[in-house]
């Protein structure tokens, strides 16, 4: 029996009112008040209705057979089943049914939308491809930046247990000149003290990554090895692939046990990936280590660069320092300490405890000195210890690289916005063409919500396609950029389908698609249905044109902002590269001797150094050679300086001391401005002399000639050194704002400390390195080892942030420019196509082709000019935030602004040229006739 009407008309009969279940308001009341029922209540109400109806029908049928009303109703209830039991089950079944059906509905809708979308895409493949490519550029840029920023700031080391509770220890203390010194490099003794005493930590380890010569003979390579304490391994959830890790017994002072754990990659490539690697020997530096285990794949400790093996820190330390004193005194600060907070302990509590132990450690060390020193209470009060996030760029010594990278992530987002604006514009233009189709659908009764979902599905699908392409772009194209900007990271360990990047890219694609599709979707819906269905309607005016113009303006503005940023960073980079460092970093090598426990007396040491120096100077590839200790950007030795008659010279700055010998200045490329250099002739018995840097002279002896003046080095009981020469300033710690002053003393007059050799080669220093090293190696007694490295590599990290900024801003700026140009071209071309009739009229009324061309060009240039002005205003406001990242470039550099604005105007003209030409070719007769 079919229903008479399907319109939900309600009857007033209600025989089983007792069926209404618990509700805020009884469903009947709600219905009476026309309040829409919530879905769950609705299902309940409907089920109750159904039951009630059934009972009523049954009762009626029974009455028709002769029962009384009460008997009939009772019998109806009986035949239905025990209501208290049965009703809940039916309600549950109904709810389940409803949920399932809703889910089906949604899937069906999605499937239909997808099918429709793909049909649309196939119909206009070129258009769809253009959209997807635009998205790909934007999303790819963001994926690349995400990977970089993620590695610098967010990604915890693989396999680390409880990574948010693990941190790096930094110790702060005031310097003589009042500035604060923050050390993440500490001595072994201090590490041991803090490890033993700090109860806030339930795990602590000492770590140090060093570049060592691994292997022998022609197979020798400079590779990164990790020196770690045995307590390092339990902090990771990374059981060894084969073998085992070293234990506390193998990591005892003074010399540990020479064992080694290989990284997975090195084990596969150098030891065949077989289990008989265990027990073999690995030569690192001057020592042989026995391999005892291999780490699992993907393990890279806490460092970004590829570490090939891990050694017990005590075993390798002894080789480095050659003396047992490394763990008994504080004079060498080299290793880093990482620790894990005990559960329930806050960072603040841990910091407080660290601070008190560090202060005590300093006091103990001062008291142990042969001449006990005191630490001023003010100094002690500023002595602090803290545990900071493990990632270096999130600690107190974060490099500017991380800041630049974060800015660049913002820039990438801007590029994506520009891309979205492009796609939105194009979608709106196409939406105008599809007005009719959409109007038909609205007329057929498709709900607004459904329509919007459909349109959004389109843009999301295009965005996802673009996202996939963008991911590929980021992986291969971005790869070159990543290697340039973060060369330390072993990018070969990064898989294509890294979970975090995939997640980020998917999210970016979906958000992009939704954002981009919203404006065209809403616009399409505001279509006037009747107007659209009528034929002959001319399109493209009014509100839509305003939106398109607004999008274009914002594109132009954003492009200008990026171009300004690019120009500023490029200028910075050029300034950095041409800035005066005070030394020449090309073709420079540096040799450090590891004496491997060989004890030499001071005279023996001096003699050895001289012999090596003499030998080096005779080698064919060596142009100049000298000894030094303090190397810019790498190691410094600082001392107090006391000037007679001047109070607290020490407090003014940090003085970097460099014991040198003949030819130092020639080898380093530091210019000697006045006077003479110091060398062998200034022996221990000769008058004490020194060469000082230009700024030091200006600071300490204002207005006077520094040559001839004298000062005490270290304490005022030492002989007063006479200044015999002035050298140019050298940038020691900071390219931008170096506050150090340098002084050079003859190495013979300062006592024999571990000397280092600097060499300027006549040719490529990388090729000459190993042969020179071997020459020195044969001269070392016993198992001494000569370490050699190129000095250009110490400079790279310092230059990195400028290079990063310049390269990425330029790349993104150009990308933005291309996108904006394409967008401008597309919109102008479309607009002209719509205005063909108007052009025809103009030509018919006597306009020359020149007039038409000017008209079109002016349209493009006007939008670009306004957008550029807007962008310049935004840039003027925003660039002050990056001023600290620039180098000798003002954030309001007029040339940068002018070139950015000029570029966008030129691009706008170029983009308008083709449509202008097309406009001049219009045949007025054809245009006027067409509809």
């Amino acid at each position, binding site marked *: 029996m079919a229903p008479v009407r399907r319109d939900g008309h309600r*009857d007033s009969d209600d025989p089983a009112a007792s069926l209404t279940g618990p509700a805020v308001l009884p469903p009947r009341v709600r219905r009476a008040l026309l309040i829409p029922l919530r879905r769950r209540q609705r299902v309940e109400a409907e089920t109750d209705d159904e039951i009630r109806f059934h009972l009523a029908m049954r009762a009626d049928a029974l009455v028709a057979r002769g029962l009384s009303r009460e008997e009939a109703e009772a019998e109806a209830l009986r035949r239905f089943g025990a209501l208290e039991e049965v009703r809940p089950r039916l309600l549950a079944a109904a709810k389940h049914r409803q949920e399932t059906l809703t889910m089906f509905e949604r899937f069906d809708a999605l499937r239909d939308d997808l099918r429709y979308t793909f049909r649309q895409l196939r119909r206009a493949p070129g258009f769809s491809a253009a959209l997807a490519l635009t998205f790909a550029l934007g999303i790819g840029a963001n994926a690349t930046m995400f990977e970089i920023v993620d590695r610098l700031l967010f990604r915890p080391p693989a396999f680390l247990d409880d990574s948010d509770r693990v941190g790096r220890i930094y110790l702060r203390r005031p310097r003589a000149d009042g500035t604060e010194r923050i050390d993440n490099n500490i001595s072994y003794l201090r590490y041991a003290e803090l490890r033993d005493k700090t109860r806030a930590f339930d795990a602590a380890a000492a770590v140090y990554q060093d570049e060592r010569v691994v292997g022998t003979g022609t197979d020798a390579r400079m590779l990164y090895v990790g020196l770690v304490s045995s307590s390092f391994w339990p902090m990771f959830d990374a059981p060894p692939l084969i073998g085992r890790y070293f234990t506390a017994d193998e990591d005892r002072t003074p010399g540990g046990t020479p064992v080694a754990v290989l990284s997975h990659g090195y084990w596969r490539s150098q030891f065949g990936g077989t289990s008989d690697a265990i027990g073999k020997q690995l030569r690192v530096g001057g020592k042989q280590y026995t391999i005892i285990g291999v780490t699992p794949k993907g393990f890279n400790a806490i460092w970004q660069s590829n570490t090939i093996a891990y050694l017990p820190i005590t075993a390798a330390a002894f080789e480095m320092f050659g003396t047992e004193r490394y763990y008994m005194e504080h004079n060498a600060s080299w290793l880093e300490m990482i620790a894990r907070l005990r559960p329930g302990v806050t960072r603040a509590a841990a910091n407080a405890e660290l601070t008190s132990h560090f202060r005590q450690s300093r006091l103990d060390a001062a008291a142990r000195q042969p001449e006990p020193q005191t630490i001023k209470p003010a100094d002690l009060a500023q002595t602090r210890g803290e545990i900071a996030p493990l990632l270096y760029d999130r600690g107190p010594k974060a490099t500017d690289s991380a800041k630049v990278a974060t800015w660049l992530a913002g820039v990438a987002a801007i590029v994506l916005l520009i891309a979205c604006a492009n796609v939105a514009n194009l979608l709106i233009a196409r939406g105008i063409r599809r007005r009719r189709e959409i109007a038909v659908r609205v007329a057929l009764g498709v709900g607004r919500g459904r329509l919007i979902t459909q349109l959004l599905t389109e843009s999301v699908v295009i965005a996802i396609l673009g996202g996939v392409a963008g991911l590929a772009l980021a992986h291969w194209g971005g790869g070159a950029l990543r290697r340039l900007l973060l060369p330390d990271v072993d990018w070969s360990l990064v898989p294509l389908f890294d979970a975090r990047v995939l997640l980020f890219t998917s999210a970016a694609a979906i958000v992009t698609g939704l954002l981009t599709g919203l404006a065209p979707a809403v616009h399409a819906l505001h279509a006037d249905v009747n107007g659209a269905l009528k034929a002959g309607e001319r399109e493209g005016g009014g509100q839509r044109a305003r939106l398109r113009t607004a999008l274009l303006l914002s594109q132009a503005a954003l492009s200008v902002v990026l171009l300004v940023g690019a120009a500023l960073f490029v200028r910075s980079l050029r300034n950095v590269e041409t800035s005066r460092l005070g030394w020449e970093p090309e073709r420079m090598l540096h040799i450090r001797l590891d004496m491997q426990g060989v004890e030499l007396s001071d005279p023996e040491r001096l003699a050895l150094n001289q012999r090596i120096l003499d030998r080096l100077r005779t080698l064919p590839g060596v142009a100049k050679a000298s000894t030094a200790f303090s190397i810019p950007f790498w190691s410094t030795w600082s001392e107090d300086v006391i000037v007679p008659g001047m109070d607290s010279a020490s407090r003014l700055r940090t003085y970097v001391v460099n014991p040198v010998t003949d030819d130092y200045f020639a080898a380093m490329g530091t210019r000697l401005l006045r006077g003479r250099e110091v060398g062998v002739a200034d022996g221990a018995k000769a008058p004490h002399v020194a060469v000082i840097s230009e700024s030091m002279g200006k600071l300490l002896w204002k207005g006077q000639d520094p040559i001839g003046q004298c000062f005490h080095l270290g304490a005022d009981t030492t002989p007063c050194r006479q200044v015999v020469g002035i050298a140019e300033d050298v940038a020691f710690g900071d390219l931008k704002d170096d506050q150090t002053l340098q002084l050079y003393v003859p190495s013979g007059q300062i006592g024999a400390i571990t000397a280092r050799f600097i060499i300027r080669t006549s040719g490529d220093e990388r090729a000459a390195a190993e042969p020179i090293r071997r020459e020195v190696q044969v001269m070392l007694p016993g198992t001494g080892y000569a370490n050699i490295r190129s000095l250009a590599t110490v400079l790279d990290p310092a230059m990195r942030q400028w290079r990063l900024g310049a390269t990425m801003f330029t790349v993104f700026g150009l990308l933005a420019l291309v996108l904006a140009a394409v967008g401008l071209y597309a919109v102008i071309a479309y607009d002209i196509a719509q205005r063909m009739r108007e052009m025809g009229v103009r030509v018919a009324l006597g306009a020359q082709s020149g007039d038409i061309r000017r008209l079109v060009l002016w349209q493009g240039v006007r939008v670009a000019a306004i957008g550029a002005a807007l962008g310049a205003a935004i840039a003027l406001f925003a660039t002050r935030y990056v001023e600290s990242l620039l180098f000798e470039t003002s954030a309001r550099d007029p040339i940068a602004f002018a070139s950015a604005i000029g570029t966008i105007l030129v691009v706008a003209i170029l983009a308008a040229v083709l449509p202008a030409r097309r406009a001049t070719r219009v045949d007025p007769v054809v245009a006027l006739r067409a509809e």
Partner: protein
Amino acid sequence: MEPLAVLRGTLDVLVLKALTWGPMHGFEITAWIEERATGNLDVVDSALYQSLYRLEERRAIAATWGVTENNRKARYYNITPAGRAELRNETARWLRYAETVTGILTTPQPA
């Protein structure tokens, strides 16, 4: 004779068969089955609705609210193509089952 309890799952196929006669509401289906069962089946009404909801969930039938001749609001069910297919299959299986069991049970005893 005592009416027989309806075996599990059989109710579904009976409902589907009923609906091939056209759209019906729950009571109509009950009445239809009772009529054709001629008192031999004991159908508990609530079990019928369980069956209806299950069938609806797997889209063998679809439901809409409508109005009866007496202007009462009722939930009408109709069979879907998927339901027809299910009916065909289940009928075939049931017949095969019944035939087989009947055949075994009516095998004459050896003399």
